[in-house]
């Protein structure tokens, strides 16, 4: 019998080129919008141009008369509804959660909300006819801004009586995980440092490159939905739960999906409407959004006001941190919209040993697009706040930003470490990552250059930005999620099918959309089962094939889903062992499995696992009492999160005459535990970095005073291009995770979480001698220039305009000259 001996000694750790690429680089792709079915009709949505309005009438007669229009529907045509966009994570039992229906008939709560759908033979005809639908609106006052919403003067949903959706608090004294933060702040006021800062996390748009698209075929026994989603399994469940369709009659397929970044983890009105229309007409139906529709109606991200109070001793040892957030959820509480800012509760304390901590989060409803997860989801917001204010502490104490971090961070020998927020950090080595990052960066040399430029009064100043981040990733322990009233578990599923020809099918419940799971999962299985990388096929994203899963978000796929694959493989080996013993006429205890082969200890006898697969297919000879077959399923539910970390350093040149910034160098050393495929990891980090840098420098979703999105196309919503960005230096240190056997941690969000504060810190660092301690994101040349101008005109003192805080009445800005109570000392 033969065994497999032509494989490398280990696949894990190899820079394997991706299996996924072949189709994608030759245009043989299966994007949802590529799908065409016999008799398929096309949908166009009629959307509200107003942020808040009562619908007084809808006249669809002209549209219905248009060429090749098959139907025009309003909400009134579906008296039993079309399902609902559910909120799966009510953060408190009292949370105010307006009903979120796919199509509204009486009142629109944000611009872009759907009021009618036109069905025609072609997409162009549907869009033409949508222009003919005549909707009369009675415009209502709209509330757009989070702080305005807090006043409850204009209500996003008048019937709710308030804009406040929920208040969530974590207090270390109450939880027993630390001291009393008010006492810590009071003590520091007497004899220490208190720094208060307000930061704005502007609203962003995920802006995945593939616009969302849905095709529904109602002609089979199961209704099939292809859709550009990160969450086929959750979508299937929620379709069943909200429409009453039996779950067994629904098949959801996520074919090739062109990016998500959280933006495709929603169940969308468009999906429910396409489903309803296809079922009503009994014909396949397709809806593909335009980019402009995507920007206005796919969910947005971030949008927080942060108020931070940090207390420390005079030497810069932190003693307390109090966080007060106002999170703008938009018009509805999206699927995990309320929970996203709450994820910050465990992250604001970051890598630092705060003895006392308090996190307060107020979520509010406004008449804007709903807000939900965008790459990092809660953790970038928190990391920005803490990494910005740690720089302020360093400036106050008068030491290097890295020195203040080192003074306060968790030492390598202190892991595992239970944080003041009650999380147990599995592993880490901040010293090693920082040392390597400094070396790669040329930290001391750049500091020397900075000093020289300051000395010579160079109009182009150099700033060095630091971010030593950590994140929690791998959503994750089901019991923890249950304790937070999250609507689902955090487990993941995998199956392995050992085919008789020696090939292996791996079915994963995760749902990749660019990450490279097919390659990485193949590497894991090739190592575990001792089969060639090429012989492993990874199947996903179709609820008929992968019937069980919780999909892809929150850097969970590898740490949860990858571990499920490992466990399924181990079960295959365990099952195969009994067959091997039988076929080799040996005692199972005398067998050892290595390199894809069961060998009898001390002999040259053995049998390959793929030969066992063939033998069980024939099943002519197998042990009594066993079922034929060695296929196996596994479900993995982790005991805890994993905590990657890293040190990011950014060198930025700031032209003090024009406000122009130019990134000179960016170095990051991330510790994400063991790495399955370094090539894929580097790609994830590069892409993450640019999304985080883009928040710092360019991107912002802006509404005008009427609630019209003015950044409603790629002309105005400024995604960075190749010409705006630089090449990066990325490396890894390795502290294997202790919460999964692969020792891996998540990497998908690391770059985005870490880079935003590194960039803003670099700009502020360049300008700090001018008295500037903040510039609101995105730090456009105009904002930088204005900050410099007003700083200069006040003899080193900065003004509200220079550091345009979000509310002139906010306490910190009442005295714009005060950069924190510590400064007064």
């Amino acid at each position, binding site marked *: 019998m033969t065994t497999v001996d032509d494989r490398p000694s280990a696949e894990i750790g190899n820079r394997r080129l991706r299996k996924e690429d072949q189709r994608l*680089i*030759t245009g043989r792709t299966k994007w949802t919008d590529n799908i065409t079915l016999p008799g398929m009709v096309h949908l166009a949505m009629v959307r509200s141009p107003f942020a808040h309005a009562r619908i007084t009438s809808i006249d669809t007669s002209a549209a219905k008369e248009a060429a090749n229009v098959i139907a025009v529907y309003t909400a009134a045509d579906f008296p039993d509804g079309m399902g609902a966009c559910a909120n799966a994570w009510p953060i408190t039992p009292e949370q105010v959660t307006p009903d979120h229906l796919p199509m509204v008939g009486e009142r629109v709560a944000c611009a872009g909300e759907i009021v009618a759908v036109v069905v025609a033979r072609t997409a162009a005809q549907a869009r033409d006819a949508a222009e003919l639908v005549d909707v009369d609106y009675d415009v209502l006052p709209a509330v757009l801004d989070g702080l305005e919403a807090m006043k409850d003067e204009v209500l996003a949903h008048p019937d709710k009586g308030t804009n406040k959706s929920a208040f969530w608090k974590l207090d270390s004294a109450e939880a027993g995980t630390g001291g009393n933060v008010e006492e810590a702040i009071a003590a520091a006021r007497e004899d220490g440092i208190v720094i208060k800062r307000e930061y704005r996390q502007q609203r962003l748009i995920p802006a*995945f490159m593939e616009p969302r698209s849905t095709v529904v075929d109602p002609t089979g026994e199961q209704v099939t939905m292809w859709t550009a989603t990160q969450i086929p399994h959750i979508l299937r469940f929620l379709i069943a739960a909200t429409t009453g369709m039996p779950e067994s009659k629904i098949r959801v397929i996520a074919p090739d999906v062109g*990016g998500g970044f959280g933006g495709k983890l929603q169940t969308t009105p468009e999906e429910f409407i396409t489903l309803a229309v296809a079922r009503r007409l009994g014909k396949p139906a397709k809806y593909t959004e335009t980019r402009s529709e995507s920007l206005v109606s796919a969910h947005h991200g971030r949008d927080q006001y942060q108020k931070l109070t940090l207390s420390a001793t005079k030497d810069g040892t932190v003693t307390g941190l109090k966080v007060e957030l106002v999170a703008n959820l938009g018009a509805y509480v999206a699927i995990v919209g309320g929970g996203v800012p709450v994820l910050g509760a465990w992250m604001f304390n970051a890598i630092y040993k705060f003895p006392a901590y308090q996190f307060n989060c107020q979520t509010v409803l406004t008449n804007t697009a709903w807000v939900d997860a965008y790459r990092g989801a809660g953790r970038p917001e928190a990391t920005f706040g803490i990494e910005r204010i740690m720089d302020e502490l360093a400036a106050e104490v008068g030491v290097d930003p890295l020195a203040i971090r080192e003074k306060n961070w968790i030492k390598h020998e202190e892991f595992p470490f239970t944080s003041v927020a009650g999380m147990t950090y599995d592993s880490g080595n901040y010293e090693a990552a920082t040392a390597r990052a400094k070396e790669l960066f040329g930290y001391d040399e750049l500091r020397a250059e900075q000093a020289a430029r300051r000395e010579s009064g160079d109009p182009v100043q150099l700033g060095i930005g630091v971010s030593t981040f950590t994140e929690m990733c791998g959503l994750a322990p089901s019991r923890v999620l249950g304790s937070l009233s999250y609507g689902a578990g955090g487990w993941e599923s995998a199956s392995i099918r050992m085919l008789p020809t020696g090939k292996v099918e791996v079915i994963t419940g995760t749902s990749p959309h660019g990450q490279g799971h097919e390659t990485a999962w193949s590497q894991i299985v090739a190592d575990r089962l001792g089969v060639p990388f090429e012989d492993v096929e990874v199947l996903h994203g179709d609820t008929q094939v992968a019937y069980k899963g919780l999909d892809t978000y929150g850097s969970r796929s590898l740490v949860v889903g990858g571990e499920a694959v490992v466990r399924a493989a181990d079960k295959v080996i365990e099952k195969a062992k009994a067959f091997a013993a039988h076929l080799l006429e040996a005692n199972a205890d005398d067998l050892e499995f290595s390199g894809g082969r069961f060998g009898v200890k001390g002999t040259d006898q053995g049998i390959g696992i793929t030969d066992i697969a063939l033998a069980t297919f024939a099943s002519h000879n197998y042990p009594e009492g066993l079922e034929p077959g060695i296929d196996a399923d596994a479900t993995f539910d982790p005991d805890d999160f994993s905590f990657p970390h890293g040190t990011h350093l950014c060198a930025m040149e700031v032209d003090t005459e024009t406000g122009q910034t130019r990134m000179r160098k960016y170095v990051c050393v991330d510790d994400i535990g063991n790495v399955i495929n370094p090539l894929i990891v580097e790609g994830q980090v590069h*892409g993450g970095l*640019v999304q985080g840098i883009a928040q710092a420098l360019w991107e912002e979703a802006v509404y005008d005073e009427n609630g019209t999105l003015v950044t409603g196309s790629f002309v105005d919503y400024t995604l960075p291009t190749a010409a705006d960005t630089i090449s990066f230096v990325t490396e890894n240190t390795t502290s294997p995770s202790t919460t999964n056997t692969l020792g891996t941690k998540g990497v998908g969000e690391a770059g985005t979480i870490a880079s935003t504060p590194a960039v803003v810190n670099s700009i502020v660092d360049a300008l700090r001698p001018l008295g500037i301690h903040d510039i609101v994101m995105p730090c456009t040349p105009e904002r930088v220039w204005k900050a410099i101008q007003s700083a200069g005109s006040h003899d080193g003192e900065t003004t509200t305009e220079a550091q345009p805080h979000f509310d002139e009445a906010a306490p910190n800005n009442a005295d714009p000259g005060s950069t924190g109570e510590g400064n007064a000392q």
Partner: protein
Amino acid sequence: MTRITVTVDGDRYTDDIEPRMLLVQYLRESLGKVGTVIGCDTSNCGACTVHLDGRSVKSCNVLAVQADGRDVTTIEGLAQDGELHPMQRAFHENHALQCGFCTPGMIMQGIDILIDHPEPTEEQIRHGLEGNLCRCTGYHNIVKAVAAAAKAPNAAALSSSAAGA
């Protein structure tokens, strides 16, 4: 309706089309060339980039009637006899794609850059790619891939088959 005759990826097509039809719609909806994709509606993203008589165009910015009598190469026509184009291979070998949605446009534009700059600097590559958006890669590996393709042994064959037509 207007009659046009267009050569696409080496095959000749004759169709009666609406004058307002965009080239990208014609490729996708009439010819089934769905390898070329639509990422925006304002000509910003470049996902629909193809070659028209050997030079890159955004096919959302060209009317199908403008392609009458001309030669179009899409991502689907680049590989010859099962052999990847050097730019395709460079994208694979340098991990220059993740979700792959921008990739057809990026590859077509990458080839075009090398027509003007056979030995491009990083800056020339970055400026040459300015009209193509990617949300996954941060551009780092795309820039590397275009540079690597320029150094490929058969870099002379880099312009698409249509260039010589």
